[in-house]
């Protein structure tokens, strides 16, 4: 990873390893009982239930998986992980799918990936996330002039309490956590 100044966070390389083999390994003992689906607070909004998603992972249906909204809707409540009778790390497997989708630059996951990347860019620069800066980076990355309006009601509420400080992004060059971010990138073969 280079540390040259940049105004928007970089996109993940499309070519990076997108194999689902590790994730298949994580859920290989799945017995398709559906306890995960029954425990999931967001199953109602998913196009495939968690149980169906694990079956797709076991069958290696990469295209179907990456078209599905299911893993992006995991809010990491860990109810499925707690209750899975096979003790599978299902919430971690959902996170691993998010990582794989970000690496593969999957179109349906692009807005979420940009959201997370903007957040981490603010962390790299300052060590801590600056809420208003990270949202500005996200708006810039999304290139949608109407998007900020969606967040205006909450922003105004927080501003009214003096909790939101409007600040333009700063420190695009050397960041507080460059050493950590660069080393991770190097070990993951991204540098």
């Amino acid at each position, binding site marked *: 990873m280079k540390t040259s100044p940049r105004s928007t966070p970089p996109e993940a390389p499309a070519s990076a390893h997108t194999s689902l083999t590790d994730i298949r390994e994580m859920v290989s003992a799945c017995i398709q009982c559906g306890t995960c689906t029954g425990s999931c607070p967001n199953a109602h909004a998913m196009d495939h239930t968690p149980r169906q998603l694990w079956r797709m992972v076991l069958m290696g249906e990469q295209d179907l998986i990456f078209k599905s909204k299911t893993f992006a809707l995991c809010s990491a409540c860990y109810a499925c992980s707690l209750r899975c009778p096979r003790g599978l790390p299902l919430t971690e497997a959902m996170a691993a799918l998010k990582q794989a989708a970000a690496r593969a630059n999957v179109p349906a996951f692009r807005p979420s990936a940009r959201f997370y990347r903007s957040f981490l860019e603010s962390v790299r620069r300052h060590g801590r996330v600056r809420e208003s800066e990270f949202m500005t980076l996200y708006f810039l990355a999304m290139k949608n002039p109407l998007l900020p309006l969606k967040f205006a009601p909450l922003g105004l509420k927080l501003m009214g309490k003096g909790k939101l400080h409007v600040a333009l992004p700063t420190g695009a060059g050397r960041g507080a956590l460059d050493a*950590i971010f660069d*080393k991770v990138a190097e070990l993951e073969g991204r540098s």
Partner: protein
Amino acid sequence: MKYLYYPGCSLEASASEYDRSSRAFLTAMGAEITELADWNCCGASAAEAQSRLLALALPARNLAIAEKMGIARDLLVPCSACYLNLRKVTEKIRREPDLLAELNTVLSADGLQLSGGVRVRHLLDVVATDLGAHALRARVTRPLKGLTIAPYYGCQCLRPYKVFDDPEAPQTMSPLIEAAGAAVHPWQMGARCCSASLMTAKPEVGIALVADILTAARGADAIATVCPMCQMNLEAFQAKASRFAGENLAISVLYLPQLLGLAIGLSESELGLGFNLALTAGLRNKLAA
């Protein structure tokens, strides 16, 4: 009782009243807290969605600093998401020695080293286990008589690691609420998910979860929370949730140390009560009575 204290990013901004009330309450109860030096973001839910290693390295850096400071063995964390990210590293390196070596390769780039000696504790764990309802009752000067409180635990201080409470049917807040002189609202929603960052990323999904929780809280005077994400989701979207549910779901939402702090006589400004987004006139009247 000495603790290292990790506020986390939210407590510096949108949850400043959680920071203020946690410090005030803990100190008043005799706990000695020292803020972790040069701490960094735990990665929240963003690092985990991008890189497995970064999601572990960010919290690991804080643990390494805590070891280096060496003031206390316990790292006290009020935010449930930070708590889980930090805790996850300590749980994983105990089971995977290779991971500890991998993390140390990353940390050495920043001049740090991790051995795994720090214990990560949630604020609620410290208040319920170390301080305890008994000591709290002895300190109460302004009992919260006539108030009914709905204890809301959320997810990540309970799951996946069972540390200090039942991850399905948590109860550690109840004795504390009763010791403060209030009654506990009977409900089954204490461990239900608030939708976390989905309320921002996919509001049409998140609002259903928020509305369910607020609906079940009807009849209580306030909801008590122990996480800035839960607090924000339950307090900031009440009008939207009310439109979604077709009924008025307005209710006061306070951080647990704000509530308990009131009972031991701390002032509203010491507890940052002016920063809450949802404090109803009904609750204010009962507090003034």
